[in-house]
């Protein structure tokens, strides 16, 4: 059994607004083992960032448990010990706003090093070292964030996360705002750091093609719930949930070989409902091309269709029931 780093159990995060209750994350469970990348994929508003913010402690969970290396860490960030804050880091989508524009890169990267009680000279060396690791020139420490390109700012954000020697880094769409030619460099760097530092990643994105190349396992989120999880190769070879199939067949690709890997066209229809008015039963039923009567009434349970491949769909669990009876 590989070392479990993070275990999230029936996590719930609701926002109570004047418009009603936003069921942003509704009983989401997943785990991440050492050195693993879990890709959390979903369309906008599906609750990916809310999961991320709850795991790092920016939000307190409405219900459910977060275990980090076996210990219950469901408490909000203010009550978390420093060591835990250092062990779980987060990198945001927009490197422009996540770095303080009034600070130099040196000041930004020094902050997480403060606990080490280093001398000024040693801190400077350490900052230069961090910059070198993300392949930026040492004299960048005297620049401020707005003088850097989007890709370079994201490298600084990654360097800041690495500075505390974390075990788990949550990457919330780290390359969505960047061009693909820049994305490639950042992704390869992240893969290198993972190997060097034995890191685990919770990698949030809406890009399934990217996850094919980066994730150990892929989880699909829809309206606050996970609807399918599987090991990457299995996930792309044998997608089971109708929503996964719709997503996969909607992806524009560049190669004929990729076209052949897409499931037979599942015509995308309808729009994502609001998380304030989650449809009853299976929340995907309003857009599902294969829905049955039961899908409008009962929310399906997660079942293990094959080893490590979990799906939350009546059509799949129905077959399971038939097969096992």
């Amino acid at each position, binding site marked *: 059994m590989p070392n479990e780093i993070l275990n999230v159990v029936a996590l719930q995060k609701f926002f109570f607004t004047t418009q009603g209750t936003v069921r942003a994350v509704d009983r989401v469970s997943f785990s991440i083992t050492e050195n693993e990348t879990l890709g959390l994929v979903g369309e906008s508003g599906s609750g990916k960032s809310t999961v991320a913010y709850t795991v790092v402690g920016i939000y307190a969970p409405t219900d459910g448990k977060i275990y980090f290396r076996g210990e219950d860490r469901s408490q909000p960030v203010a009550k978390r010990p420093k060591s835990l804050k250092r062990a779980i880091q987060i990198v945001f989508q927009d490197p422009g706003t996540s770095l303080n524009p009034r600070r130099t890169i040196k000041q930004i990267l020094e902050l997480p090093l403060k606990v080490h009680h280093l001398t000024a000279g040693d801190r400077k060396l350490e900052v230069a070292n961090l910059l070198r690791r993300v392949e930026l020139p040492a004299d960048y420490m005297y620049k401020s964030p707005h003088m850097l390109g989007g890709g370079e700012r994201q490298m600084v954000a990654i360097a800041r996360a690495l500075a505390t020697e974390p075990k788990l880094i949550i990457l919330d769409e780290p390359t969505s705002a960047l061009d*693909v*030619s820049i994305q490639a460099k950042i992704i390869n760097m992240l893969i290198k750091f993972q190997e060097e530092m034995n890191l685990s990643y919770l990698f949030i994105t809406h890009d399934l093609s990217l996850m094919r*190349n980066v994730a150990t396992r892929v989880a699909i989120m829809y309206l606050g719930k996970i609807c399918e999880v599987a090991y990457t190769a299995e996930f792309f070879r044998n997608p089971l949930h109708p929503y996964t199939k719709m997503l996969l067949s*909607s992806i524009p690709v560049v190669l004929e070989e*990729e076209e052949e890997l897409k499931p037979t066209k599942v015509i995308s229809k309808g729009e994502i409902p609001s998380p304030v008015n989650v449809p009853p039963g299976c929340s995907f039923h309003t857009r599902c091309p294969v829905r049955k009567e039961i899908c409008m009434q009962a929310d399906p349970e997660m079942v293990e269709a094959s080893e490590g491949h979990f799906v939350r769909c009546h059509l799949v669990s129905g077959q399971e029931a038939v097969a096992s009876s």
Partner: protein
Amino acid sequence: MPAPLLKIEDLHVEFKVYEGVLRVLNGVQLIVNPGERVGLVGEAGCGKTTTMKCILQILPSPPSRTTEGRIFFNERDIRQMKAHEIQDVRGKGISMIFQDPTAALNPVFSIGDQLTTVIRCNSRTTLSKKGIHQRAITALREVQLPDPNRIFDGYPIQLSGGMRQRVCIAMALATEPELLIADEPTTSLDVTIQDQILRLLNELVDEHGTSVIFITHSLGVVREMADRVYVMYAGCIVEGAEKSELFSDPLHPYTRGLMSAVPKLTGGGIAEGIPGRIPDYLDPPSGCRFHPRCPYATEECKAERPELTRIRGSHEVACFAVERGEINAQ
């Protein structure tokens, strides 16, 4: 071969800003034939939107200045046209759909108000009030919006991003333009909604026989939407070819780098990408603007700007390494 519907020759556009002059467009040249769907692909800031705004003559001036170039629409240079002629081109000849459908719609007018205004001002024939209303409802139905009558009376904020983009498409096509310019129309949308909008656009332009310039930063999207594709880098067209040829036999080092950097569903990891970043337009590189990032760069590339040169058929490339025979077509 009929005359091109649109022909841009050697277009240079700069912006005067506080820090100096941004020399953005550097000899853009492209052609759209009647009935053709042309893709324009390039990364953020390469000048795609600037080129399109220049066609429609809607670049703010100052700060912009078109220093050189000709833009022929139906064989007449838009830059030489009188104000009312340009107005005609904008209203009846060319329509545009923008990336952000929220900004494109006015929040204080109803969808119906905005749609009927566009139809009334730009229709080729004079229509009755009832005729205009009918045309608007038909346009909303055409973009597959549910309950067009309700949408007609509604306001933009009541619609989702995907529905707003459908309204923008309805407005752009309601005047039956000869050329539709779609500037990243799905970039702000989710992939399943993008899929719906792309299918819709393809159906509609097929039906109406509209010519299209489809702008995107995504090679995957351009592959769905274009017959012929131009690749743009730092204010220059670096390559153009029939879609199938561009994807099977890209020649320009930038096109190749971009192609290999796209994550593939087939897996196998991500290629290294392209070193460096796009140049600063205040002080763009001499010669070929791609040379500081190019593995093939020589003194020649630093000194001179390569011309877009025909390789075969409609495949053209602006690259000295191709001319020198260091990169060969298959």
